[in-house]
């Protein structure tokens, strides 16, 4: 039973310079079941963010159709919360804590309850006690974690994350991956997770999708990760998956480099 459906989706943008259109994503076909943790990998510029933007409802496909729970996507919704690539979606006029509580406040949650949830969320991302700082006073990695806390705290049905751990050091990232997996196991929400780290994808995903090189990338292959219980880099199954996905991406990057040289 598909929960998120992308049917033959394509998206092209009109270039502001030449008024010519350029294809960002083409013929993207995918069904995601409820409770899945779907990881999307692909060479830089292949169209990952574009797919996520459309799933969120911020942009409409120029071809094909996107459905969530059977309903066509008309616009953004609180059920599909987004962690954006980059940090320009934080509110610079709010402190870190107020940024995190934004969604709860919109939902009208009373302030005491809110405070408690925000404290928990800040702790989860390793930023307890930093809640009174403004985004401009935080480091790049800290800002990214604030964004994650802001999305997690509202416990959305669908969590759309665009390279959420990109600005984190390996260790902090490791802690965060662990936390995210715990949350997902506990809440069984559906996650679409863009990353450029193969390890991360295999560690977290129920399935891993690999896109072809851009511009105008599409879904090349989807690998189902069948590892029960805790995942471990030393597990031979893990290494096999790694090699498989790694091979696909290497091909695609090579293709994209070749395409560019041409």
């Amino acid at each position, binding site marked *: 039973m598909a929960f998120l459906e992308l049917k033959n989706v394509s998206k092209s943008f009109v270039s502001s310079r030449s008024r010519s259109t350029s294809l960002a994503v083409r013929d993207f076909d995918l069904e995601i079941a409820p409770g899945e943790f779907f990881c999307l990998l692909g060479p830089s510029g292949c169209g990952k963010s574009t797919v996520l933007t459309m799933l969120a409802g911020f942009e409409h496909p120029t071809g094909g159709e996107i459905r969530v729970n059977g309903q066509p996507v008309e616009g953004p919704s*609180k059920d599909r919360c*987004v962690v954006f690539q980059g940090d320009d979606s934080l509110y610079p006029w709010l402190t870190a804590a107020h940024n995190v509580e*934004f969604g709860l406040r919109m939902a009208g949650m009373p302030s005491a309850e809110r405070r408690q949830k925000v404290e928990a969320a800040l702790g989860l991302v390793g930023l307890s006690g930093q809640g009174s700082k403004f985004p401009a006073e935080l480091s790049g990695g800290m800002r990214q974690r604030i964004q994650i806390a*802001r999305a997690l705290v*509202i416990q959305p049905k669908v969590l*759309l994350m665009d390279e959420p751990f990109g600005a984190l050091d390996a260790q902090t990232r490791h802690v965060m991956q662990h936390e995210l997996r715990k949350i997902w196991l506990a809440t069984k929400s559906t996650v679409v997770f863009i990353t450029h780290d193969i390890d991360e994808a295999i560690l977290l995903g129920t399935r891993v999708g690999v896109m072809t090189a851009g511009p105008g990338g599409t879904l090349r292959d989807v690998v189902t990760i069948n590892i029960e219980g805790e995942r471990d880099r030393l597990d031979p199954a893990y290494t096999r998956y790694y090699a498989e996905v790694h091979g696909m991406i290497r091909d695609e990057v090579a293709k994209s480099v070749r395409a560019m040289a041409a």
Partner: protein
Amino acid sequence: MTPSKTATLPPPIAIPRPALGPIARFLVAILPSIIGFLSLFVAWHVAAAYLVQSVLFPTPLATFGKGLELALSGQLWIQIGASLKRIILGFAAGSLIAIPIGLAIGSFRTFRKLVEPWTECLRFIPSVALITIAVIWFGIGEESKIFLIIYATVFIVILNTAAGVSAITPNKIRAAQALGATRWQVFAFVGLPATVPYILTGMRLAMANAFTTIVAAEMIAANAGLGVMLWDGRMFMMIEEIFVSLVCLGALGFITDRLFRLAILRFAGRFSPTM
């Protein structure tokens, strides 16, 4: 880093300087301002005393002499008080009206299309030309004067506010939508605060309009005010009075603007990198 960084950084192009003692630093900091002010008066003096030499263009000394005389007689304070009251009331009311309209124009496309014909036509109609209409609608009391000041304030603040709304980074709006904010909440919790620097710039610009319009407003049946002083001065060729009135408008405007900026830094500094 996000654009927000501006909130805590010094003006960008300023190259850091080697450290100085606090007093020396203060002096170096205000010296250019002092030179600026002095040059303003020197230029005026040279123009009046040597270049133009017209009876219609008094020197700063003559003007300040007259100003002092009027100040000592108490006259000047009455005029300033009368004008300032009108300016402040009109400016405050105008801003209060304009901010929500500007936000709505920037946020809701249909509202913009409905309202733009009004704002975009009316803002080109000079307030001096509206005197007659103001009197018909509001009589010759304070209301009509304050109406004119409001009129002069409203459009600038609307336009700047609307421009601010459309300059918001889309991801800020998108984030709010994905966090469950309704249209109205996006408007109030993202549109408004993100637009504050633009609104404040608009208000600073509008403040000048309020000051310049007081002169037109006080053409209507006013008994006191800097505008009255100016018109009477013009009618009777009391040149010094005209210039005292102009200097007062300039100085009051300058002071009000500084106070406004101070209040902003004090209460809304984090919204406003640019002041």
